[in-house]
């Protein structure tokens, strides 16, 4: 390799190049970097997508788009990102798709073990804590997913938790995650949180109805598919109540 370098440099730069040590180092450095980058294996892939969830007084709405991408290619137009966990909770996960699949199948196993041991459905807050532990166990090779857990809490009230890739979690009333997070979260704040209201205006009590929550979720998915490259194709919205789960599918932009 060194022989080739010498011949290459002398042919391109002429004899002067061989005298300049700085130039030699520069060229070598770039070649080194190029070589290293080719050899290095990146275990993560960004598969894109959007998920969002809204909690209400006695329901939780969780929505996702159905596009999976890899770079500028669309790998799937019809892959839902919602996973049913228990009869009253669902996980919506976006980021690296292989990590999503691994994480959700592990969670399904753990939930079945819990239900067989304790003879009861796992409560959503316990499930949130378990997800956090499971994700933090992989602190030094994380599940590269941003996930949302939405469902009903022990009293039947709607509840939403969101997780970062290493398991930090927080309870909230509404959340959007994924490639269009920056577009959607401010919209949700405006519609549901009234966070940016001026102090002089009274802050209304949070009581979004089921119908308007589903409409907001639908609108947000449309916003995401319009402006975000990696979201689109179809949208799936599921509403969890104590009577079961109702599902709506909408068509989004396909480009």
């Amino acid at each position, binding site marked *: 390799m060194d022989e080739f370098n010498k011949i290459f440099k002398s042919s391109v730069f002429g004899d002067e190049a061989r005298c300049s040590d700085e130039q030699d180092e520069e060229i070598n450095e770039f070649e080194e970097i190029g070589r290293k980058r080719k050899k290095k294996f990146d275990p993560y892939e960004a598969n894109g997508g959007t998920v969002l969830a809204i909690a209400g007084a006695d329901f939780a709405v969780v929505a996702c788009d159905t596009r999976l991408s890899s770079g500028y290619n669309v790998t799937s137009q019809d892959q839902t990102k919602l996973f049913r966990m228990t009869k009253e909770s669902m996980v919506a996960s976006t980021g690296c798709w292989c990590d999503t699949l691994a994480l959700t*199948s592990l969670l399904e196993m753990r939930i079945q*073990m819990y239900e*067989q041991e304790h003879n009861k459905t796992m409560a959503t807050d316990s499930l949130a804590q378990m997800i956090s532990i499971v994700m933090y166990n992989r602190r030094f090779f994380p599940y590269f997913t941003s996930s949302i857990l939405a469902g009903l809490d022990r009293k039947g009230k709607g509840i939403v938790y969101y997780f970062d890739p290493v398991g930090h979690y927080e309870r909230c009333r509404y959340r959007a995650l994924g490639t269009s997070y920056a577009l959607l979260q401010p919209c949700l704040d405006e519609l549901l949180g009234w966070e940016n209201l001026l102090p002089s205006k009274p802050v209304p009590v949070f009581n979004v109805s089921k119908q308007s929550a589903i409409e907001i979720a639908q609108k947000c998915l449309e916003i995401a598919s319009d402006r975000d490259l990696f979201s689109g194709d179809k949208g799936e919205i599921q509403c969890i109540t104590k009577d079961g789960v109702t599902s709506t599918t909408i068509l989004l932009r396909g480009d």
Partner: protein
Amino acid sequence: MFRNQYDSDVTVWSPQGRLHQVEYAIAAVKLGTATVGLKNRDYAVLVALCKPPSELSASQRKLIPIDDHLGISIAGITADARVLSKYLRSECLSYKHSYGSAYPVSRLITNLGNKMQTTTQRYDRRPYGVGLLLAGYDEMGPHIYKVEPSANFFNCKAMTIGSRSQSARTYLERHLKTFNACSNDDIICHGIHAIRSSLPNDEQLSKDDGASQLNITIAIVGKNQPFKILTDQENLVYLNMAKERGTTSMPSKPQEDDDNSSFGDQPGTSTLHDPQVAVATKEN
């Protein structure tokens, strides 16, 4: 069976070629209360008699769900049954996680048989003192398996184990030909009648007594029916149904189309056939 010089260890053969310890373990199953398993074309049902050891205590859990597609009923040493059910549960979960589908019942039974066999061939272990009736449903249809402490397992059309189960077995043998065509309600009623015959004589007479009614647990698994242990209310419904129908009203003559029905056991009639694994498949 009597005590002799060849029964001190499970690794000792008798001159007649018997392992007495294993046979004594099988006798332990007869100490447990009776339990019945039977199936029709698409469903398998387990009925267990849960008699508490004394009036002061609650009855033991006889039916244990293993996975969505199968569950077991136990007779014998409950602690051993707990260990086996934990093993079966972890096997089913692991299979579901690795292959994304339910563990085929016959293969799970072979797996369990292999595990139980090691205890009959080691000087530092003893056989599991529990008999299992396993009811499961997979692509091959419904299954009833009987597993003994000797690690022998039998694919059954219907079976009973436990104390005083011979009369229940006689009932099942008498009505066997009708099971395939029975509806779910009928098959549960058959199970209840079968197990009623293994009650002690004084309790059989007091059929109207409320206390003896709640001593039965029923579970069903099958097509589009995950393994489900019926609630107390549902139990009462079936107990009343069984009482109303009575044994005489049940058809005891075989029906015409039974000969053509594919039970899954007759070669040539069924297109699906689970590969029969004849030897131990896993090294323990």
